[in-house]
């Protein structure tokens, strides 16, 4: 019994640690290190995003995207012309008439989405 009481007393003594004089500056140092780590992580994620974007863009260039877009634009124009022949009165077809622009806009959106997803994935990691 006596030994248990002494052990409890000892635990209390250990728990009653005196407040050190530099407790505030110590906490500030830890917070600064946390902030520094966070900043470094953000830079790392940003750099990884840029690298990913550059690689993505270079892959698009390598895969002859521009030629494909042009041919897709031609196809879209041909399709529009064909539809115009079928029905000259439909308004919605005119929206597709600027086929090249639409395809470019879609490609740009896809690139933005890819960058966003890549950044999020790296951020989660």
């Amino acid at each position, binding site marked *: 019994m006596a030994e248990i009481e*002494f052990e409890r007393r000892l635990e209390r003594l250990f728990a009653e640690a005196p407040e050190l004089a530099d407790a505030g500056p110590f906490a500030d140092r830890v917070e600064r290190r946390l902030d520094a780590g966070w900043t470094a992580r953000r830079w790392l994620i940003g750099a990884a995003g840029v690298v990913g974007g550059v690689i993505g863009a270079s892959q698009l260039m390598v895969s002859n995207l521009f030629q494909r877009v042009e041919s897709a634009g031609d196809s879209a124009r041909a399709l529009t012309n064909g539809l115009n022949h079928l029905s000259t009165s439909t308004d919605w077809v005119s929206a597709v008439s600027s086929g090249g622009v639409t395809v470019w806009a879609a490609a740009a959106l896809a690139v933005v989405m890819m960058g966003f997803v890549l950044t999020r994935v790296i951020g989660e990691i």
Partner: protein
Amino acid sequence: MASSRHMKFASLHDVELCGFAALGERPAFGELVRRHGSAVRGVLRRMGAPPAEADDVAQDAFLTAFERIAEFRGEGTFAAWVKKIAARLYLRRLQRERKLGALSAEAIEDDPPPPRADADATIDLDGALKALGATERLCVTMCFGAGLSHTEAAEALNLPLGTVKSHVKRGLDKLRARLAPDGDAVLEGRRGNG
């Protein structure tokens, strides 16, 4: 602005602060450091770490705790959780610097030092701990200050369980002689259950 955020967190309970910290709120974690930094540094100093080294390890322990805050389930206190992390980090540092082997190989003093005449009047744990051998001090502080069981301490120290129990028992005997000179029973190291 920053101080108003600190003020906001100052009134919250540790568990709530941990919740905010888990969401990435660094000022909330800073408040936890402000509250428990001295206790964690104190445990490390009582384990025998010099003040500068104790501060380094305590900082690393808090950074580790922030990284792993999602693992803290609130089953014990936040301070106890960080103390365990800090104790393990300090032992790892000792192992890296090959100081732990030297401590384990130290001669064990058989006779506790004579009790102080004024032990009843002044309960000076830090002074009493100085009367212990380095490994006894480590073992006692890990078990009673950092809250590790005998088994956890043995694993962290890479020592046999029986050896750790023996160190704890000897340490307790010496502490009792220093802190309670009128005590009547020989202590058994009963912290943890193997």
